[in-house]
Structures are given as structure tokens and as C-alpha cells.
């Protein structure tokens, strides 16, 4: 047991103050997962609003597909993105493989169905009622959008928190498309995995603490934004 306590102590020491390398890893993790969550949000909110408000043929099928997509393993998305951005792939010319760009793309794809499904579930009822109320009172298009988004803001925040939490903790897929290159694509999860396998248990623990703190900070921040 003592080596775990030693690991915790040494891990804490590595963070006070954090070295340049650890700082770089932290910043890259937050940047990649933040960008991925942002992109997924920009796609998921309109998608959820559309699915919540519009009736169309095949809507059930689409909702079913979104829900199924939540169950797709991250490594499969990693495989897909790898295929897309590797040199022979359709996006190969962009040279994205083993860059933060590829990681953002993969993480955004991973978060999108989860965020859409969560926002849709939370919007059910709420969005329709907000729409009916605003429309019946004479809202124009802009006023209608404001009313529905305002009413759905808690739904969206829940989805954003879940999406960010999902991608910042993702390892295998991020490793596949990012490559865990030191100083370039190494993020918290891939670093923890590498350092632990190398036997650098205390570094793993230090990074683990950072990962938890980062997730906690983001969650608290978003909760505060909800105003409750």
C-alpha cells in the first residue's frame, strides 16, 4: 500500500508548482477537448432543437440512430477518423494524422451523438411548449429562437457537461489518431497510460489528479453558469 501513498505524495509534489511539460499536457488536453466539445455543441444543439420541434417522416428512425450512435465504441470512431485522415484517406491531404486536429475531430464525433441524445431527452416537452407559447403570442423568428433556446438552456448545459466529461477522459481513440507525441499530441489520458506502463507511477498519479481537478473545475463552472 505504501507505494500508492508515496505515489500520491510525489504526484502532489510534481504539481507544486507544475513543470513545463506537465503544464503543456494540461493545456493541450483542455484545448483539444474544449474545441471538440464546442464543435459538437454547435452541431448537437441545432440537431436536438430540430428533432424536438419538427415532425417528419422517419423521425423515429433518426432518433433511434442517434441513440445507437451513443453505444458505438470510441475505438471504432478512432478507426474511422484514422481511415479518414491517414495519408491514403479522403482527408489525407490535410496532413491531420497525429496532430491535435485529428484528436479534435475524433472527440467531436464521439461527443456529438451523446450530446444530441441528452439534449433531445431534456428538451422533450420543454421546447414544444416554449415554441407554442412564443408563437401564439406573436413571436417572430428571432424571438422564437431566443424563447426556445432560453427555455432549453439547462438541457444544453447538461449535454455540454456530459460531452466534455466524455471526451476529456477518452484514451484509446485519442492515442490512435493523436499518437501521444511528446510536446505535440500528448494529453492527460495518453500520458497517464504511457507513464504508468513505463513504471513512472507517481507521474501517472500526478496527471490523474490534474485530470480529476480539470473535470471538476469545468463541471463547477458550468453548474455555476446554470445559475443553481
Amino acid at each position, binding site marked *: 500500500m505504501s507505494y500508492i501513498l508515496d505515489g500520491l505524495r510525489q504526484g502532489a509534489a510534481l504539481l507544486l508548482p507544475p513543470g513545463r511539460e506537465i503544464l503543456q499536457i494540461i493545456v493541450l488536453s483542455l484545448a483539444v477537448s474544449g474545441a471538440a466539445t464546442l464543435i459538437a455543441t454547435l452541431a448537437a444543439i441545432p440537431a436536438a432543437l430540430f428533432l424536438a420541434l419538427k*415532425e417528419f417522416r422517419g423521425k423515429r428512425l433518426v432518433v433511434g440512430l442517434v441513440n445507437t450512435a451513443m453505444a458505438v465504441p470510441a475505438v471504432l470512431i478512432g478507426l474511422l477518423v484514422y481511415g479518414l485522415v491517414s495519408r491514403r484517406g479522403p482527408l489525407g491531404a490535410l496532413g491531420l494524422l497525429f496532430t491535435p486536429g485529428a484528436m479534435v475531430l475524433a472527440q467531436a464525433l464521439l461527443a456529438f451523438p451523446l450530446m444530441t441524445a441528452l439534449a433531445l431527452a431534456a428538451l422533450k416537452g420543454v421546447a414544444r*411548449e416554449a415554441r*407554442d*407559447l*412564443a*408563437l*401564439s*403570442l*406573436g*413571436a*417572430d*423568428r428571432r*424571438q422564437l429562437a431566443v424563447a426556445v433556446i432560453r427555455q432549453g438552456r439547462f438541457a444544453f448545459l447538461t449535454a455540454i457537461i456530459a460531452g466534455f466529461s466524455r471526451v476529456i477522459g477518452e484514451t484509446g481513440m485519442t492515442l490512435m489518431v493523436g499518437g501521444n507525441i511528446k510536446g505535440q499530441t500528448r494529453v492527460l489520458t495518453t500520458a497517464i497510460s504511457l507513464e504508468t506502463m513505463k513504471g513512472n507511477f507517481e507521474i501517472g498519479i500526478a496527471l490523474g489528479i490534474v485530470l480529476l481537478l480539470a473535470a471538476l473545475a469545468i463541471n463547477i463552472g458550468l453548474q455555476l453558469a446554470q445559475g443553481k
Partner: protein
Amino acid sequence: MMEIHIAGLGLTVGNKAILDNIDLEFSPGVVNVILGPNGAGKSTLLRLLGLLDRPGSGEIYFDDRAASSMSAAERTALRRRCGFVFQAPLLLAASVEANLRYGARLRSLGVSDEAVRQVLGATGLAGKEGQEARLLSGGEKQRLQLARVLLLDPDLYLLDEPTANLDPLSVKNIEAAIARLAREGKTVVLATHNLTQARLLAGKIVFLQAGRLLQAGAAADVLRHPLSLDIAEFSAAENIIPGTLFRRDDSAMLDCGPLAIEVVSERTSGRAAAVIRPEDILVSLEPITSSARNSFRGTVLAVSDLGAVMTIHVDCVGIAFTVFVTRISCSQMGLAVGSGVVLTFKATSVLLLPLD
């Protein structure tokens, strides 16, 4: 004030026709009541009128302007002439006053504090401005919805069961307010399954069932001469007796099993139902000589008190009749459970509805 004309309106969701080929007109000046049981399509029709949903087929004309040819801006402009009261109150998570002013804010209408005070008073919500709307009682929420719409002073009122959750006194006040709107020349369309309300308020009645328009016309006509058994059952739930038509001498008769009722009918065969209004049946203790062609002996099964009028249930050889008798007649005749009576009514008082 707004004239509404509906032509061939239909809406199908999945395989189910929610509304099926509806032709209608709504005019200002009277309360137009959409009557019908649950699931008739009343709310759907109101939503289409309020431009909240789009019909699957057909057209709605507002003052001769076809809704389907309107631009988005024109549809918004039209919605701004409507006031919609939802069956289940829709309110913002905000104060009563914020809810009240929400519509005015969306329509960029300036509303004076005096106007706010006035509608709050008219809807019995005076002094509640600062309260959280979500914490109001069901009835208060419904009145707040109406207040919000009254404040906008629209030309067209679309009211979906506006008194469903209210206590009797509030119902009376709201009904009076609705009647006043119609008198002031507004176009008022009210959906309800409450027959008493329809009788009280309606200038025009539109009867819907399972998405189909069964009858539309002046309220008195629809209530007095229902065109189908469904409407009769809904609007005059008493004395609907099915049977088979036959001819006896020169008269048309309806064979109702234990007794045969003389009716006025061209047809003398086939299934039909006799509808006899309770107030058209004469109750006596002994057979009377009169021109009325139908007279049956029976026994009083129950007497119930409705205030000025007593309702007497009479069994005539296995067929139950409901009759209205004034309180005075009832006591003078000494009617009680078990009394032997004679029921008399004219053949012309029998409304005959074909069953096949």
C-alpha cells in the same frame, strides 16, 4: 374582428386522420363553440386556426386571405391578431406580471400599469403581480393565460377549454367575459366538451367527432335538431330509444321492443332511434285525452332535485324515460319512487335519427 372561412381542412398524423375534410365559417359577434368528446380534434382545429401547426390539406382564409399563401412575416402578423388560451396553461418560469407582459413585449405593444391592473382585476388575480407564476393554483394559471390574452386585445380569440380547471364562481366570471368579447364584435372560437357551457354561450355550434364535422349551425338548431345519434347522445343524453320502423294503418311506428312509439316519418322500415326531449313529455297520474299520439303507463324509478326542476326517471315496461317536471307539479301530484304515472308525448316531438 375577423371572418374565418375553412375549406377542406385535413390533418393526418401517421395513419390517423386527426381532422378530415372540414368546411366551416366563423364570424365575429357570437361565441363560436366547437363541441365534441375527447379526441374529436377540437384542439387540433384551434391550433391550425392559431397558425401553430400547418394543415395536411385544405385552406384557412382569414378575411379572405389564404393562410398557405402567407409569408412568414404575414403569418407572424396574423398571429399578432390572435389570442390563444391553451388547455394546459403555458407560462414562463417568472412572475405573474412578467408572464402577463410577455405577449405585449413580443408584439412591442406599450402596456400601461393601469391596463395591467385592470385585466388582473377582471380575472380575479389582483394583488398577485409579484408572485411566481409556477406557484399559482391550476385555476389561477388558467386565468393568467386569459389575462395575458385580454391585455393584447386581439381580434380573434382561440380558447381551448378555458374554464376546465376553474371553480364555479370563476367559471361564471370567465363565461361572462367571453360573452362580452363576442358582443363587442370580436371573433371568438371556444372549444369545449362542456354542454352546459355550450348551451349558455354558443351562438354557433360546430360538432366534431373523431376528426369529422358532424354538424354546424346556429346553437339552437344544433341542440334542438341534432343530425346524428352521436350529437343527440352528446347534447341531449336523455331519452334516446333505438328501434325498428314499421307501418301501422296510416302511421309510421317505431318498434322499441316492449312498446311502439308513433313517429312522423316518410320511411317505414329500417333501424332508427327516437329522441324525445325530457321537457316535451307530459306526466299525469291518469290517462288523459289529447291529440298526443303516444301515451304509456309507467312507474317512477327515481326523483332527483335539480333546483327549480325535478328530474323524474320512469320505467315503462322496461324502457327508461327521463322527464322534467317543475317542483310544484311534482309535489302537487305527490310523485315519489313507486308512483304509477302516465307519460304522454306527441308524435311530432319525436326526433327520428336513422341508424343505418
